[in-house]
Each structure stands twice: as C-alpha cells, then as structure tokens.
C-alpha cells in the first residue's frame, strides 16, 4: 500500500505532536505529509485537520488560503478525514468564540464557552477543561476498535460542541455540562480531545484512522 496522509498546516498549531504520533502508527507505505498546500490535500488519500488556539484565527487562515475548500473537497471525495480539537470545532456550524464565527458546517451543532460550571460537589469547575476525562462511546465505530468504553483521553479546551444531533454523535463527555467528545458522519470523524497526547488509547485511535476504509 502506498498512501499519503496529509496533516493540514495552517501555521498555528503544534503539528509536530500529531505528525509524530501518526508516523508512529503508520503502516508500511503510508507517508505522513504536513502541508499547507490545498492541492496537496486534494492529492492526499487521507486528511488530518488538527488545531489548537483560537477558532476565529483558524477559520480566517483556512479561508484565506483556500484550505477550507480543500478540506471540504476531501470530504466530498469520500476520503477518510479526522478533525482534532479546534479542527473538530471548525467543522461544526457555528462557534460563539470571539463574538461568533461561522464554521464549515460539516456537522450540525454549535461551539460554546464552558462558562461557569459547577461540579458534583458544588465547587466551581476550572476552565480550560484540562486533563484526562472519560469518553462514553455512543456508537459502534471502526475508530473505537480496541478502545474500552469510558477510556480516558487528554482534553485541553475552553469551548465545547453542544446540540449535536444524536445521529452525528460518536462519543460523549461531561464537564459540568454534557458535550460532544467525538462526532462521526460517513467518512469524517472528529474528536475534541488530543489523541496524539492520549497515550495508548489515543495512539490506537490514530492507528484505527490510518486503516479506516469508510
């Protein structure tokens, strides 16, 4: 098998981590290519859309560079696409971050600030939601293969996706309020947590993505 896996580089995130984790899990012949070139995304066999930082900047850059169109083209071409963190948020309808940003609309649902949330014991929860939290798998999906339900993954975010229709939910998490930890639709899977930083469970998910034939 000879395949190219494109990791979308829009000049902001720490792509090194995602790239290295994918390289570790890649099969023989799979090449990980970190690129900001829309044509390279169109030529790739699989696309990973990672992200950290602010969503407004992310949407601004991918729109200006034409990467938004290339990501949507990859989705339309039925290639396996994986969104991570801000990459997932950018695929929702809308985010309220920075006074409101229209996103790519691949998934229904909106991105909201955690705000003042309280834990089970009544204490105010810290934001960002930072650390290892459990993910309840709400669908049977090839990307969950070999990963125990309620496994812990590493999260770091202040905004989260809510009001996702049940048929697009793939995993649920809770931090004061329930939110989408993973969404799935046809050839697209997206996660709020960082699989590249989630030890064995995260690496397994990346490996599953690299072998996924939707």
């Amino acid at each position: 098998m000879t395949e190219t896996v494109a990791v979308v580089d829009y000049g902001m995130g720490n792509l090194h981590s995602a790239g290295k984790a994918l390289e570790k899990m890649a099969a023989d012949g799979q090449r990980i290519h970190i690129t900001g070139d829309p044509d390279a995304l169109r030529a790739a066999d699989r696309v990973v859309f990672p992200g950290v930082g602010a969503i407004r900047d992310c949407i601004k850059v991918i729109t200006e560079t034409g990467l938004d169109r290339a990501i949507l083209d990859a989705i339309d071409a039925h290639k396996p696409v994986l969104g991570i963190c801000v990459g997932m948020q950018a695929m929702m309808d809308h985010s309220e971050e920075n006074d409101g940003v229209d996103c790519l609309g691949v998934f229904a649902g909106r991105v909201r600030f955690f705000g003042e949330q309280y834990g089970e014991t009544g204490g105010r929860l810290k934001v960002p939601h930072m650390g290892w939290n459990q993910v309840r798998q709400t669908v049977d999906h090839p990307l969950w293969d070999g990963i125990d339900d309620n496994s812990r993954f590493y999260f770091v975010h202040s905004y989260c996706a809510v009001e996702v229709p049940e048929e697009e939910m793939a995993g649920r998490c809770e931090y004061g309020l329930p939110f989408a930890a993973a969404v799935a639709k046809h050839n697209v899977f997206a996660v709020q947590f960082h699989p590249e930083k989630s030890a064995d469970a995260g690496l397994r998910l990346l490996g599953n993505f690299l072998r996924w034939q939707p």
Partner: protein
Amino acid sequence: MTLAKRIIPCLDVDAGRVVKGVRFVEIRDAGDPVEVARRYNEAGADEITFLDITASHQDRDTTLETVERMASQVFIPLTVGGGVRTIQDIRNLLNAGADKVSINSAAVKDPDFVREAAQRFGSQCIVVAIDAKKVSGESENNRWEIFTHGGRKPTGIDAIEWAKRMTDYGAGEILLTSMDRDGTKNGFDIALTRGISDAVPVPVIASGGVGNLQHLVDGVIQGGADAVLAASIFHFGEYSIAEAKEYMARAGIEMRL
C-alpha cells in the same frame, strides 16, 4: 465521568541532561531526559514537565533538540519551562513539540508578555509559574510574595494577587511552587495552594515539598490543586507513579489508572 487529577513528574534538565539524576531499574543511563520521559510515559504519568535550567544561550539549541526527540517518543502532554523570554522562544518550543510553555521571570519583568503570548498561541499552552515564599509573621494573616530568578530575587508582589492578574492576562494554568517547602519533603504549603486555587478560574499545579504519597492527597483535597508535581520521590524510586495513583484513588480522588 469526572476529570482526573494529574500526576506530573518534573525533570530538571541542564545542557540536555537530567541533573538531579533519576534511578530506574534496568536503565544504565538515567541522565537522558528522553529516556526518562519515555519511562514515565510507560509508567502512567499524566504529563511531563521539563524544566530547562540551562544558563548559556548555546545550550538552548540542545534543549530544542531534546524536546524534539522527546515529542517523537512521548505521547502525553509535555510542558517546557525555564528561560522563556520572547514570543520566538515560545514558538521554537511549540514547534519542537512542547504542548505548553511555562513563563516565570519574564512575566514579572513584563506582564504584557503573558497577554501577548496567550493571544498569539492560546491560553491552553501558556502556563505561568509562580515561586512564592511566605513573608508574614507568626501572628499575622498569611501573606506570600513572589520571587524570580530561581527564587533569588524578591519582587514585593503578593502571590495571590499576581496569580489572579496572570489569569486575567490569559494564563491557562498556574504552576505554583512553595519556596519554603521545595526540597524539604514536608509536604505542600496547603494554605498557599488553597489560597491560589480558590482565587483563580484556571487549573493549579501544586509543587514543592512532596515527601510521601499522603502529601499528594493533601495537595488535592486540602489544597484544591488540579495536578501535583513532584521530582525526587519518583526519580529515586521511592514510589512509582502507579503506587501514587492507587494511593490517591483509595483516598477518593479521581485518577487515570
């Protein structure tokens, strides 16, 4: 579903070597930070903190190389601190594979640096490290001041006010070290930890003074810390990460086991 509290082993690194030494069974060279981090990753550590205590400019390149090697073998979050002074320093570390950078003296020198860093890279990767020392007398109300330059330089700044200000400026996490307790093995300064944790809306990592596993529990339950950082109790094999996690879980703390 509850967020787990975190255990963070800390590596002090000088010119690419772990300085205080780490003793793992079956490792010949325990001074290589990449090897040490890899072992902690396997042992179930929740994050790694890499404190660069290198003084010379030349050795900073060694640090970046070390971070890069570490990031290709360690798949848990990595925080790098020590000598972070410019936006370019942050960019270099993030590009090398750090997930978060920790800022200390440079924040005191120019608080707007933290604001700029958080705007540029996002609060999630900006940690402000605070070295605090108690300055109040026996009969007074507790008061702590922050010190910079490895604890040598007093600033006259109140630690709790400073922590609040830094989170207002965009710090996404506070790494709090009690200078009174650091190296004593007498446990965290609980009043300080509680004071800071209650004052800020972001996670707080307690550091300085861990001598046994009950100290970790006290830091979380009494101090309100979201994460606990320790070096020597893990480095010298007194306790394993797994033992620490089991102990904390038995005390009713949510842990990633």
